[in-house]
């Protein structure tokens, strides 16, 4: 039996934060030196529990990949909506925080080498996809064409806008940004992500699409991808659910016999379509 207590968070320090969108901020945590060696490096798609000690903890996807230069600085994008997230937004720089993880499975990016990748992010659903983009850009020669389709309800809800230029400038990469409804001052694409996806119409040949967003978006993006000729074995997504352990014990996150925390959060569309209980 392992000596590690999976319910005990590793302690770290809040070293940075910046606004990403209305209500959404990026938080950077550096683990305390004595905790670092016990914490294994994470992969794109995995998640963590962020603790405000004395308030509580909640699960979030990692929003970055480990940086070889800066050591394990963890980034998470957090929307201020609940008890814990309000407390996170109120933290001062230098505050002690807790991190449990990395948890769950991850996007099988090693297996996708040599393929074209389509990344589809809706709202804060873009956050767990940022490590996918970072990973592909870091290993650019290992992948084919990269298509990024980024969407939000309105321009103020688009996340990581300051990084779009860098993504667009990467070799063999295209990016399309859209908002759901017309908005004063917005000159870019207007329309649902499915509409833009069908206009851009990436070829399904040797391609995998990776989607994250609200469940209803994941559902309709799946329909559009099918229309374009993608099979369920070419569609990856990541789901979320309320959780209290992240290690398959608290019983909270099941969809039928599947546990989002342990069997996921990353699933192939072909798996999701066989779920006994709908993810919608």
């Amino acid at each position, binding site marked *: *039996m*392992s000596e590690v207590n999976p319910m005990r968070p590793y302690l770290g320090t809040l070293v940075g934060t910046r606004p990403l969108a209305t209500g959404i901020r990026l938080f950077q945590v550096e683990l305390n030196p004595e905790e670092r060696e016990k914490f294994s490096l994470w992969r794109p798609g995995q998640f963590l529990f962020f603790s405000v000690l004395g308030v509580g903890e909640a699960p979030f996807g990692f929003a970055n990949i480990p940086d070889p230069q800066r050591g394990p600085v963890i980034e998470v994008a957090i929307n201020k909506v609940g008890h814990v997230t309000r407390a996170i937004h109120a933290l001062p720089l230098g505050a002690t925080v807790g991190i449990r993880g990395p948890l769950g499975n991850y996007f099988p990016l090693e297996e996708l080498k040599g393929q074209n990748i389509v990344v589809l992010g809706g709202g804060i659903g873009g956050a767990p996809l940022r490590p996918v983009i970072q990973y592909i850009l870091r290993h650019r020669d290992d992948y084919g064409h990269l298509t990024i389709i980024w969407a939000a309800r309105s321009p103020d809800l688009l996340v990581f806008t300051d990084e779009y230029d860098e993504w667009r400038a990467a070799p063999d990469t295209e990016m399309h940004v859209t908002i759901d409804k017309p908005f004063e001052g917005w000159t870019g694409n207007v329309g649902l992500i499915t509409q833009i996806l069908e206009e851009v119409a990436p070829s399904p040949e040797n391609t995998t699409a990776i989607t994250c967003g609200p469940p209803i978006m994941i559902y309709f993006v799946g329909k559009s991808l099918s229309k374009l000729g993608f099979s369920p074995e070419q569609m990856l997504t990541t789901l979320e659910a309320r959780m209290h352990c992240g290690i398959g*014990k608290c*019983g909270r996150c099941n969809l039928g016999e599947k546990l989002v925390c342990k069997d996921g959060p990353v699933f192939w569309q072909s798996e999701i379509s066989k779920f006994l209980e709908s993810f919608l």
Partner: protein
Amino acid sequence: MKFIETRALHEWLDRLAQEMPLIAPTAVGPQEKAPGSRNPAAQGQQVFYREVEGAAQIAWDFTRTALSAREHFMPKTETLFTIETGPDGKAVLHETKLAQPRVFFGIRPCDARGLRVLDAVMLGQEPADVYYAQRRQNTTLVGLACPQMWEDCFCNSVGGAPDAADDVDILLIQVEGGFAVQVVTAKGERLAAGMGLQEVERLELPQPKLNEQFALPTQQQWLASFNDVYWQRVGDRCLSCRICSYVCPTCRCFDVRDETVVTPQGERIVRRVRAWDSCQGVNYRVQAGGANPRANLEQRLRNRFYCKYYYVPIDYAADGCVGCGRCVIACPVNIDIREVLQDLARREPA
């Protein structure tokens, strides 16, 4: 065959209680019905597994305890760690350690079987839960066979038996003048060494009276019944009161939260606690943004049955129900798990 006289057993228990915590079935609550009370539950005492000081406190003649053995391995609320913040703002976590060995005496075979399910979830897959693991490792289980299946028991329909020794370290079966003793595990052997057991040639073991056995739905029937209108019909009665989960020996869902308490001495303690929860509660799945993927009663009720008989067997290779009958008795609107199982087993899904 090993045997112990009743008096010798009592003496051994009295000595044991001096050496280490001894948990056993014991009567709790008022001896008399409160004057003027019309609440049937207020009458007499209920038996719980509780720490006792000796044999005199043990309830020997009981059916099933009000709560299962689970509360001693996964307490209703437990502190995972306390959080101490220094003047420099740096935090230190003090994890709860549970090192003391103890004996759990008089556990019913169904409750012991319930621990098998909790073991599968909490220990069977890495990473193991260290709190549960410590309690489990430090506890020796001495089972007390049921002389018969009681009203509402159905252990024999879900693979158990009133005198099953499978999940205890030692099993006692009451016989004339004392107890037949089956030493099941090495842990049980270590404990039995101090019991002063007699070796007897042969012992007439009683045959416990069984309740009528019924067939469970097959895996195919579970699969085919998920969207059956039947769940709306049963769910229509459910109150979401969650009592079925709380009395269940195998329910393990928990909530984790931080709280600050002030002791009577004025000390402020900040801690992270884990508490029992139930998938039957309306807020169980609610996410911070307000989404509730299981907002309907019938979805929640269905989840409980599927968890026991379909999900747990697939996910953890264990049977999720031990047939103790507690949820049958506790349900205020008489949703009877035996009835649901038999309905599903003979129904054409609609």
